[in-house]
């Protein structure tokens, strides 16, 4: 089989994985080596595919052969599909030559389980070893650990990769039991715990010996499939928050389930992937990581799912009129962040600019505040914007109208109002 065929099969099999970002570890270039990760930190997109997703890394499987039979997966052993295996030499050469041409920021390597988990991990380690030692590749590598592989191999993989991930796959144990009979929650969490502990130890070592080898300097991440099981947004978001708190994950990725198989336990094949839901979850995830929100504030037991019409922050703001209005000229950074239409960058600009003089509504747009949303929630020197009148109802309409969604089918949704 040609490398072209293998690349086609193994890209096709990896494309449903959501995690394609690079981030975290800034590593300058080294003499005699190729590459650095200094733009990886800012999340450098090298292209956007026809579905509008950012392509950063060469995202492929080492093989799509798999001894397991997870029901939602195209690579499950009971599926009749073409199989391929990259040799470590082919894959490392491909990575280097793509990198030299600036097609990619690095490699994202994942794999089906070939023969057994340890054998698979050994082969993945060979790929990374070739890249790091033979090609002297100093760029970004993200590797997915294979469920059930032994701890020594996880450790060795982590010494070669920038980031490791262990996929949680489905948001609940019941989901796992039904759809991924070979995986259990504890088997998934075990390596996550190991990676967290090794990261902590490694950090202490690095304090003592500056040149101690680095273990996964960009930390660990995970991903889960959304919409293959009946779990609520609230359940998913609380799980996400728990993962950040307990395992100190750098990122949790969500992947809208694309029906790839007919199975009575799964949504029917004509179901559209829940893109809007995935989008809302990412917005909420952002609020957890950068805006100081907690999952319980965003969704309640009575209201366990996000409003499709407005983003989670607007939704929160509408339910908390007592928090508003916020005074632009005196409010703390944390409070500014809670205002719809104000982001981390514009909040920082407000702090910076107001030290140079009082800010008025006219100034805010130039600082990057989205006034279409923010106008209902902000005052400058105690005043709302001239001529603005509103009620609960008109605010909701205004916010819906201000929604800019990146998906075509959702635009139609907003037209009903």
């Amino acid at each position: 089989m040609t490398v072209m065929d293998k690349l086609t099969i193994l890209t096709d099999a990896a494309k449903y994985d959501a995690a394609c970002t690079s981030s975290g570890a800034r590593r300058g270039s080294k003499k005699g080596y190729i590459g650095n990760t200094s733009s990886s930190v800012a999340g450098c997109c090298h292209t956007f595919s026809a579905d509008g997703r950012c392509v950063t890394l060469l995202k492929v499987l080492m093989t799509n052969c798999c001894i397991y039979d997870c029901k939602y997966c195209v690579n499950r052993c009971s599926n009749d599909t073409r199989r391929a295996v990259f040799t470590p030499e082919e894959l490392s050469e491909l990575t280097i030559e793509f990198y030299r041409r600036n097609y990619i920021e690095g490699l994202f390597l994942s794999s089906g389980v070939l023969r057994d988990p340890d054998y698979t991990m050994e082969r993945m380690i060979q790929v990374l070893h070739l890249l790091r030692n033979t090609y002297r590749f100093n760029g970004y590598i993200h590797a997915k650990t294979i469920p059930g592989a032994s701890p020594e191999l996880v450790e060795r993989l982590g010494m070669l990769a920038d980031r490791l991930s262990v996929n949680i796959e489905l948001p609940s144990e019941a989901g796992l039991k039904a759809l991924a009979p070979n995986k259990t929650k504890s088997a998934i969490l075990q390596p996550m715990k190991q990676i967290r502990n090794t990261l902590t130890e490694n950090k202490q070592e690095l304090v003592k010996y500056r040149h101690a080898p680095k273990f996964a300097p960009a930390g660990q991440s995970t991903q889960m499939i959304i919409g293959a099981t009946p779990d609520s947004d609230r359940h998913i978001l609380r799980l996400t928050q728990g993962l950040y708190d307990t395992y100190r994950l750098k990122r949790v990725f969500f992947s809208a389930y694309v029906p790839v198989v007919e199975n009575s336990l799964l949504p029917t094949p004509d179901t559209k992937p829940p893109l809007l839901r995935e989008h809302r979850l990412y917005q909420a995830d952002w609020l957890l990581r950068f805006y100081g929100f907690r999952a319980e504030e965003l969704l309640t037991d009575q209201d366990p799912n996000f409003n499709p019409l407005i983003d989670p922050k607007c939704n929160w703001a509408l339910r908390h009129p007592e928090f508003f209005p916020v005074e632009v000229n005196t409010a703390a950074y944390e409070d500014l962040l809670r205002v719809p239409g104000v982001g981390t960058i514009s909040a920082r600009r407000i702090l910076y600019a107001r030290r140079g003089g009082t800010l008025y509504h006219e100034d805010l747009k130039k600082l990057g505040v989205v006034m279409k949303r923010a106008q209902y929630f902000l005052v400058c020197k105690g005043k709302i914007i001239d001529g603005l009148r509103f009620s609960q109802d008109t605010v909701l309409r205004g916010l819906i109208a201000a929604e800019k969604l990146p998906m075509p089918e959702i635009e139609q949704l907003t037209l009903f109002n």
Partner: protein
Amino acid sequence: MDTVYRYDGSFEGFLCCVFESYVNKESPAAFQTAEDLNPTLFPIQWVESNEAHAQRILRSINRRSAYALELVEKGFLTCAEEREMMLYRFIRALYDFGPDLVRRLSDEAVHPLVKAVRHLDGEVHLLRGFTRFSDLGGALVGEIAPKNRALPLLRPHFCSRFYNERLILYDRTHREALFYRDGKWCIAPLEHFEIARPSEREAQFRRLWKRFYDTVAIAERYNPKCRRTQMPMRYWGTMTEFQDESYFEATPAAVEPPPAPAALKEGWRA
């Protein structure tokens, strides 16, 4: 009476215009470069480049605010309309108000400059990802067509990432090229540039990349509008994945890349 300052088009030359206006206590009506032949009603004054004068202006800006200096240096690379006038107004206001000026982000002397620099920074950020190289006879050769003069800001990134490679990156819009080899670089004007035909190996990697690009998209999520928003079509012209078929075919006779100018500068860091 108002005069038009004509200068050589270099950053140093522009700073000398600022110096000239300061010494003569006059404000120019407009700026022109040597190539600029637009007729004007105002008398034209030629301003000669002078390193000492330029340095004095740079120091006087830096003394007030290092951020202001960064804005001025980057501002000169932007494609803003009446770029020199925008910079001139900013520098004058900086002398009048002092260092606090840069906090007045919505001031009319500041906002246009900050906005233009944001546009430049944004374009440079995108081009770190969207730039494509080809391996032609061992050298990495690429082309870009940015609105702003992005090369000086892309240089540290690519020279450090491809430390051991030979690089040539051509800016079609501004007709200048970055040359890099063995830790030395230069950016020089280059009127004509034509990229050589690929070898079979190069063509093969182009095809592999195109195949990867076409395969990685999920059909059920097809969303061309989102793609265009994230990656405006004006970048597509120099990206491998959007070229037509002939781009992916090799020609037997490999052509040498253009030779680098003799004088390369030391160092690859910013």
